[in-house]
């Protein structure tokens, strides 16, 4: 076995000429690699933290771990959104210990009673006269996350004070695709947050969340049981050959979007043929028509079709997966090479009528979530991969070569995973974005 010594160079075989792409399995099990990933990827990226609909009014807040840090997301009394590090400047205790709340006026650390307002300013120190003149209360507010950006209600933060602008990090393609998602309406995160985990390396879930090849096998029951039980689907699944798209110069299918971002399907104005559209048509047809009318009125016919057609599954590097056909926002963070904590939400338009909302939720649960009819099989599969990696000294490489050299025969490509890995390797070895992530 090559001894990489915690160095990522050589962990990827990327032979575009022959059409071979391999990942060394030590990338999934090595503590030193995880340490590097924390330093060079998670601490130097824009990370998804939450949605404004989770804390819409002044005094509303949520707390959660982002990039391994406890964070408070709050709408302050001045109406500003802030991302504050959840630790008392005195001796460290969490100043906010609720998952969520409303009408907060202060965050009070119970340890010694220090009080911060919702802007994070230190406003009260019991027995303040005990401190010398050098003690500067003004400088001891709750530390904000070094960078925060609100993109149309989606809150991203970065722990790198020198982080490039959000727009430049995303690039025009990824911005176009996420805006297509957000154009579905006045988006909100539905109440109910899936907090779960996998006993598996986080990169397995990046791959899996964009893997078209596994669907017909891992999710056989969705196609052979769930869809037919709802009166839908021919049981063909995604391996059924799709009609050749018209040669009209439009982008379609899996597309690298720069900086490691990638989608399995570029949105087009082709008539929505997604499972979601079929389900909603069947169970909330009249209400969907009304919703479509609103969409067309606002965006015009062609754009409305593109918005409703969605964008497949896409990655905002490194760890935000948006699964457009189900309205899933999913992010995750590794606590060790073989374990990750996962968060999943449903992003849906406030314009939904009650019946349409219910149909969207039913469709979501038809596949997604730890109790859904498909996600548990992904958990099982990825945990199985991780168990298999115990053989990494004898069985060193995983293969991700499908669809290289522009091969479109034989079903789904694995291009989207190669895009991720190319950016991953560049970040770990050079600290820079990959120059080109496509095949």
């Amino acid at each position, binding site marked *: 076995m090559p001894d990489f010594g915690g160095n990522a160079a050589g962990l990827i075989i990327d032979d575009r000429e022959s059409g071979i792409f391999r990942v060394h399995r030590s990338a999934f099990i090595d503590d030193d690699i995880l340490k590097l990933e924390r330093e060079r990827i998670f601490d130097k990226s824009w990370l998804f933290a939450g949605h404004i609909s989770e804390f819409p009014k002044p005094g509303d807040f949520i707390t959660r771990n982002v990039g391994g840090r406890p964070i408070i997301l709050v709408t302050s009394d001045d109406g500003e959104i802030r991302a504050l590090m959840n630790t008392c400047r005195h001796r460290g205790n969490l100043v906010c210990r609720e*998952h*969520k709340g409303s009408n907060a006026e202060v965050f009070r650390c119970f340890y010694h009673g220090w009080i911060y307002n919702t802007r994070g300013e230190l406003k009260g120190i019991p027995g303040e006269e005990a401190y010398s003149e050098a003690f500067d209360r003004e400088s001891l507010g709750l530390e904000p996350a070094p960078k925060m950006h609100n993109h149309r209600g989606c809150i991203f933060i970065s722990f790198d004070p020198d982080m490039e602008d959000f727009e430049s990090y995303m690039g025009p393609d990824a911005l176009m695709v996420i805006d297509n998602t957000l154009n579905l309406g006045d988006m909100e995160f*539905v*109440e*109910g*947050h*899936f*907090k*779960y*985990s*996998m*006993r598996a390396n986080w990169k397995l879930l990046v791959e899996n969340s964009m893997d078209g090849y596994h669907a017909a096998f*891992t999710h*056989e*029951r969705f196609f*052979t*049981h*769930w869809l037919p*039980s*709802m009166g839908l689907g021919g049981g063909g699944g995604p391996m059924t050959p799709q009609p050749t798209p018209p040669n009209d110069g439009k982008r379609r299918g899996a597309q690298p979007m720069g900086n490691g971002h990638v989608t399995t399907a570029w949105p087009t104005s082709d008539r929505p043929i997604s499972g979601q559209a079929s389900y909603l048509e069947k169970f909330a047809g009249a209400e969907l028509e009304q919703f479509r009318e609103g969409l067309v009125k606002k965006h015009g016919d062609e754009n409305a079709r593109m918005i409703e057609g969605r964008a497949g599954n896409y990655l905002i590097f490194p760890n935000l997966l948006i699964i457009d056909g189900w309205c899933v926002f999913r992010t995750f963070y590794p606590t060790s090479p073989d*374990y990750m*904590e996962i968060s999943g*939400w*449903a992003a849906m338009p406030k314009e939904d009528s*009650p019946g349409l*909302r*219910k149909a969207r*939720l*039913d469709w*979501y*649960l038809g596949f997604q*979530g*730890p*109790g859904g*009819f498909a*996600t*548990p*099989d992904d*958990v*099982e*599969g990825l*945990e199985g991969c991780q*168990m298999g990696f115990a053989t990494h000294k004898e069985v060193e490489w995983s293969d991700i070569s499908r669809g290289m050299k522009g091969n479109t025969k034989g079903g789904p490509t694995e291009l989207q995973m190669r895009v991720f890995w190319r950016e991953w390797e560049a970040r770990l070895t050079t600290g820079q974005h990959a120059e080109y992530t496509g095949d």
Partner: protein
Amino acid sequence: MATATLNREQVTVTRQEIEEWLYAEAEMLDTWNLNEWLALFDEERGSFYIPATDAPYSDHNTALFLIADDMPKLKSRVAQLLSGVTWAENPQSRTRHMISNVRIKGWEDDMLIVKANFVVYRMRFQNIDPYIGEYTYKLLPRNGSFKIAERRAILDLEALRPHGKVSFIV
């Protein structure tokens, strides 16, 4: 002995009857006798819910649930669990449903409301994951026994960590 009486139909139910019924249900689940278990549900009104861990008292019409099955979905769930292609439960998990603190809360229309605490252990690939929480049953007295109108399992867990999934019947 705790009893509840539905005056209109003069049905008297004792806690012992309820406990025996719950134990029988638990045995069906732990032995993967899921078709027999499915037959416990009322054909029309039967439903099974597990709310998200951060919104235990929310409404499945407006909130994201872990499980929100009406009868067509529950029948499909059971068929899937017995199909051999639900990889999350093939091979089947070993489970053990422990039920305690059984309380008859009274009647809601024609339904007897029963609450009980549970710990369900799932054993799989050398891991033991406990699912802890409270059941609320809405039961319809039928022919000296009960049909389930609603079975709701509210998890006390703050997150499904490290459980990862709810792929069997809690």
